[in-house]
């Protein structure tokens, strides 16, 4: 069931294309960016600015700020609260992740 995707079911929602660290991905229009990323098997959204350790979704309601990323040039956007849209560009704040040196496992 989850072999290709983390989606639990298929729905009629409108799909969109967006970019995460330059990689083109598919998501549903209007769902939180974090949900689109997780649906693509991406759990690491950024790295800790101090330790360099990976970080991803934790609370899902905007409190912990762990899922923040740069969205269309705006830094520190909480991806769990922010709806996805056609063509947006999402970047982990850490430059090494942006260059794809650290791979997200899917």
């Amino acid at each position, binding site marked *: 069931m989850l072999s290709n995707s983390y989606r639990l079911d298929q729905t009629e929602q409108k799909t969109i294309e967006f970019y995460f660290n330059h990689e083109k991905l598919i998501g549903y229009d209007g769902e939180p960016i974090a949900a689109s990323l*997780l649906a693509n098997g991406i759990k690491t959204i950024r790295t800790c600015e101090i330790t360099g350790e990976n970080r991803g979704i934790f609370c899902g309601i905007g409190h912990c700020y762990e899922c923040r990323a740069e969205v269309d040039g705006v830094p520190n956007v909480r991806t769990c609260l922010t709806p996805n849209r056609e063509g947006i560009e999402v970047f982990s704040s850490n430059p090494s992740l942006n260059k794809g040196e650290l791979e997200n496992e899917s």
Partner: protein
Amino acid sequence: MKVDVAIIGAGPSGLTAAIEMIENGLTVAVIDEYYRPGGRLLGQHYEDPKAAPDQRVWNGKNIADQLEKKARGLGVHIFTNVTAWSVSEKWKIHLSHPKINMIVSKVLLLATGSAEKALPIPGWTLPGGISIGAAQTFTNLHRVAVGEKVLIAGIDPLSLSVMIEMKNAGIDVAGMVLPPISPASGNHHTPVQTVARLKDVAGLAPNSFIRTFGKYALAWFPRLIAHALRFNFLKVNGVPIHLRKSIVRIEGSEQVEAVILQSVSADGKPVGQAERMEVDAVCLSAGLYPLVDLAETTGCTLVDIPELGGVIPLHGPDMTTTINGLFVAGNITGIEGAKVAIAQGQLAAVSILKSLGKNGSITVQEAKMEMEKARIQSPLRFLPNIDEGRTKLNKLWEKEGVI
């Protein structure tokens, strides 16, 4: 923007209050940080055995959608994806909105809800380590699996219902274990203490839990507590509930790869060797606490009542606080279910209407009775001693809460 009433939080209590007030002649604005209204309702989906036969299925998302539609239809201003970052007297609500940076109101209703307590154990920041509430939202609302093989740490009413929701969605839940047993966790999570708390769940459990676990657990509980030492695990919906194993740490280099589990005695002492279980996600459940940050900025009196979930604004039976024009409703007043939150929203609304010289659809007294009814009818009880906590609060209010 100027309104009669500003409401912070578009969950069940905030939306219900907004509808009642606008229907009775007040102008209302509701502010919420999330991208859509509904609050915790959005993730809720379970069967309610206490409800009338035709209302057994509690579909929180549908209820949220109905409340939103009704509120918008009546002209409530709903701001989503907007943070109310501070409030100042009487009342200025400061917003993170790109165009509207302030709402001015006569009355402020704080319906900010609750957040989850952290369960900080080694490895908990690894991607794949998420809160149980996030797991519920991603499963039921976004319909995305949090992992391919999931472990849940923390055995309580909320984590049990999320486990069942994940199983129903086809997610492989490898098991449920106790939180770490350590001085830091206050040692409230020994097998005996956990089982004692689950007694409430067996009586009030949602969905199929009552039919599987509840059915035999009800009969078994007295013996279960007495013989907790003998039990390795129970199975609910095919998921092992390890009442005598606790999580020690989460391991992984880039993200969650495994957990280390330790068997414990009934009173929480380690027994035998630790074991490793491979999973790619861990849901951490440590309970909820009321969100009082904005209440703090108003200077209202706060009180610590552990039976209600922690620090809350001191408030009276009609949802007034120690500050004139400041009201509260929902989980900011104590951790309870959505039905109670809805009734509290209604009660706060009629109290506010009364304070502004207007009549509501029911009287304050009637709304209080509706709230008591909702409390009795709630299918899921998060905290076992809510009634005790409310009694404590009322005594404090009588002593200190005079405006």
